């Protein structure tokens, strides 16, 4: 239930028995061969697993390192999110026997991945999305509706991701027995961080096998971006016990002033049901986060990351919006891969630290593709040319 002092269950009483039921169901599913078979089946023939581990030769030569990309961007719906949504929707349907799914979404990636899994598995789906995000991410809203989901704009608080989670939690408190809440990252009250970590750990399991086959040894560095932290936990988990492998999480430093770097610039707090690092003021009010990457725009972080930071097993850094754009252009230009702005942060960290990484084997978790970010990129470019 805890990662060191982090995690736990800070939730209204109504959810307590529901989370217990969820934990029991998950543990049952984890042991069930039948469940694993179904989940693997959908991941392989529907989502497109295993994803390749690609040696980025041009980028490697440029930087003087050996850079491998774990190609989660090639998955159905364009990001690693689908690993978790298929897992949780199957859990809801097959084990919990629930008929209605709710989820939050910021940029819309997790919303689309949830709506997709619900369409596939024939479940009713409601997605909560901040009103500002609804306006900014029209295409994703349209996709979710096309996939049969109801999209509810949330106009409380900052009208973004954190408020969408608040509203999803309120829905769940109101409909605890009929509904399962598919949370999109390794955040929230226990057992969510454990469940999402489990469904995302397939990234690390594959990457480890792949690098051993390609290089005959483990990598020196595994680098991933961290918002809530699900793609990072997903790839880190397989390497946690391999002490020689350095794990690096890269947070969004935003514009330098406003940011989403809860681990590197936040403090201890309790938010969305968990004890973790939080961006807050001296009164404990949560501050609005910022990042050019919508998927990193979250004021807290998964409790396991908080623990990995304190224990020193993983290191966390932040890079700013500008750097992320450089990472975005770099992978596009030299590898023909337009990355999402989220992993572009991790790419930027690698570029910035290429001297220290010289000659090392580095795996970057390329958690999503950049199609969704073209409008942000275009606006930024326009801004700069003006």
């Amino acid at each position: 239930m805890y990662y060191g002092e982090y995690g736990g269950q800070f939730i209204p009483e109504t959810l307590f028995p529901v989370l217990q039921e969820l934990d029991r169901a998950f543990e049952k599913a984890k042991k069930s061969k039948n469940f694993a078979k179904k989940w693997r089946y959908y991941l392989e023939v529907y989502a497109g697993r295993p994803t390749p581990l690609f040696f980025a030769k041009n980028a490697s030569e440029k930087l003087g390192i050996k850079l491998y990309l774990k190609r989660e961007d090639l998955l159905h719906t364009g990001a690693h999110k689908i690993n978790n949504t298929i897992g949780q929707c199957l859990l809801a349907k097959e084990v919990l026997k629930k008929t209605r799914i709710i989820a939050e979404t910021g940029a819309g990636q997790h919303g689309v991945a949830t709506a997709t899994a619900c369409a596939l598995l024939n479940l009713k789906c409601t997605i909560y999305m901040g009103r500002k995000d609804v306006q900014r991410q029209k295409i994703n809203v349209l996709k979710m509706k096309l996939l049969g989901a109801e999209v509810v704009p949330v106009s409380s608080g900052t009208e973004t991701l954190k408020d969408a989670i608040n509203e999803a939690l309120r829905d769940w408190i109101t409909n605890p027995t009929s509904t399962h809440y598919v949370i999109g990252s390794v955040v929230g009250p226990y057992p969510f961080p454990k469940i999402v970590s489990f469904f995302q750990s397939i990234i690390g399991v594959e990457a480890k096998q792949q690098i051993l086959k390609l290089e005959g040894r483990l990598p020196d560095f595994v680098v991933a971006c961290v918002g809530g932290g699900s793609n990072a936990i997903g790839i880190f988990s397989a390497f946690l016990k391999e002490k020689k492998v350095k794990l690096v999480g890269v947070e969004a430093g935003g514009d330098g002033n406003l940011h989403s770097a809860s681990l590197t610039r936040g403090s201890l707090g309790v938010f969305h049901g968990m004890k973790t690092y939080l961006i807050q003021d001296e009164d404990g009010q949560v501050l609005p986060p910022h990042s050019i990457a919508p998927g990193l725009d979250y004021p807290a972080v998964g409790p396991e990351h908080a623990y990995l930071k304190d224990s020193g097993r993983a290191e966390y850094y932040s890079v700013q919006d500008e750097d992320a754009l450089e990472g975005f252009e770099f992978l596009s230009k030299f590898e023909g891969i337009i990355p999402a702005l989220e992993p572009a942060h991790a790419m930027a960290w690698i570029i910035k630290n290429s001297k220290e990484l010289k000659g090392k084997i580095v795996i970057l978790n390329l958690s999503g593709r950049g199609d969704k970010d073209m409008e942000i990129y275009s606006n930024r470019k326009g801004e700069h040319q003006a």
Partner: protein
Amino acid sequence: MKICAYFTCGFPDIESSFKIMREILKVADMLEIGIPFSDPIADGPTIQFASAKALEMGFKVSQAFEVAERLKSQFPQKKILFMTYYNIILRKGIESFIRKSRDAGIWGIIVPDLTPEESSDFCEIMRKNELKTVFFVSPLTPEKRIKKISSMTSGFIYYISTTGVTGEREKLPEEIKNKLKDVKKIAQKEIFVGFGISKREHIKELEGFADGVIVGSALIRKVIETKSSEEAEKKITLFLEELKGEK
């Protein structure tokens, strides 16, 4: 049947909220001072609105202690509680928050996102400072857990009338009386029913099944619906008297 009234500190501004709560204390048996939090997940739209507005107006947690102290000095006989989310307490330091509450004359603290499982430190410090703990029981809480919750409760049990967030509701759920009977049997503590209480009929219905009710959103709405806070004070007084069956 006791009436415990909730009001959001700092809504619509700090001084008006003080005056409104002063009027509330003239009628209600107990007062819950809500300390606004940016992300109140257990609250419905009305209290969310009040909290957001208070924060927008620059509410600081230190003001809640001042308001509590002023109110307590005018109503020394009445029990005044704080209701806030755990992050507010944690950020100020559990010990420091509780001590300041005690010094302000606070009787108990309600934390809607703190379960008994996570509250051993909190309860210990509350006990040392002779403040009362209030924990929640929902319609889904199993019997065994009601026992546990009751054993950690030194104030009263806050029974959530129906699964959901705070806010007014037309009707109380049909099974509520049976549930309350069960809770009373297991818990043997005072029980206050909250979430959705907004009418005299609700209170009459609960007579004999609960020791008190908690009313909040309905009071906040009176302020939202009126132009001046003086007018709101009058409406709130009338409404509370009506709830008590005095009008």
